[in-house]
């Protein structure tokens, strides 16, 4: 079996929700055994993003003030968003929008590696879905940085790889109902 076939995500962990009325922000923290500089490249360079992120970028996200087109991977119809990089303090803080959502990355040197924190203001109805998706993306990122890439796992691929369990686990942690997706009848037992 390949590493990808053997991959199963661990339990939901490292996530918090910050609530500002109806506006919720997902905060996900992961500790990676790689330097902030290396993680920064993976967060900003299209060739690296292609290996783990849920979108394609048509140019680097590493320069403040630039406009980058992000294409959502795995959406049922092509979905391209114009993104504005609003902060790019390498290798510490990166901020940009993804459609009408804001994304902020913070990288802190930590025990020889990086403590990576993501803030993403996903609509609260979909926030457990987003947490589950990022969880898997971070696992794939960790393997990529370790030199043992297993290939991007997003969209339908993620659903085959434990996404539904993670979605349910994060929904429970956040105290929200599990969104009905995919419809019950279409699920494996």
């Amino acid at each position, binding site marked *: 079996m390949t590493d990808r076939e053997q991959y199963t995500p661990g339990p939901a962990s490292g996530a918090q929700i910050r609530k500002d009325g109806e506006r919720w922000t997902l905060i996900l923290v992961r500790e990676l055994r790689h330097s902030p500089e290396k993680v920064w490249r993976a967060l900003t360079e299209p060739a690296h993003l292609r290996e783990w992120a849920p979108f394609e970028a048509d140019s680097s996200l590493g320069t403040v003030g630039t406009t980058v087109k992000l294409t959502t991977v795995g959406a*049922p119809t092509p979905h391209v968003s114009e993104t504005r990089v609003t902060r790019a303090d390498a290798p510490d803080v990166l901020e940009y929008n993804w*459609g009408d959502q804001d994304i902020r990355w913070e990288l802190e040197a930590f025990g020889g590696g990086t403590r990576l924190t993501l803030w993403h203001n996903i609509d609260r109805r979909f926030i457990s879905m987003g947490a589950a998706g990022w969880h898997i993306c971070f696992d794939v990122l960790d393997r990529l940085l370790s030199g043992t890439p297993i290939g991007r796992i997003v969209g339908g691929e993620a659903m085959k790889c434990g996404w539904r369990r993670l979605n349910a686990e994060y929904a429970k942690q956040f105290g929200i109902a599990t969104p009905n997706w995919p419809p019950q009848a279409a699920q494996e037992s």
Partner: protein
Amino acid sequence: MKIKVMSVYVDNHEKALRFYTEVLGFAKKTDFSQGPYRWLTVASPEDPDGTELQLALNENPAAKAYQQAIFQQGQPAAMFFTDDLQADYERIKARGAEFTMPPTDVTASKIAMLNDTCGNLIQVTQLMRW
């Protein structure tokens, strides 16, 4: 192979969901999001596992131009069928919808046309039986 989903473009997901559920009386069927992308469909409570209508956010300039043109020409973006057009007309009108055409006899059917407030005309059709 079946016809399972058709789409209408809408200018705002929340407004469209309110109109298609609270005014027209459909029920939300599937609501899924991936990043900024959202897949939202409604279905008829009379046929909950039947054909779904996707409320697709119109962010595409070409699609916007097409949508405006057919709206101005008075062409419907979608067509629903009913067994009692007059009753549905009264019900939907009472909930505040604007009809651009009241129930009207045409060949082999009676039709009415309403504005979905999201950029579309919707035709409601009752086939004549004889």
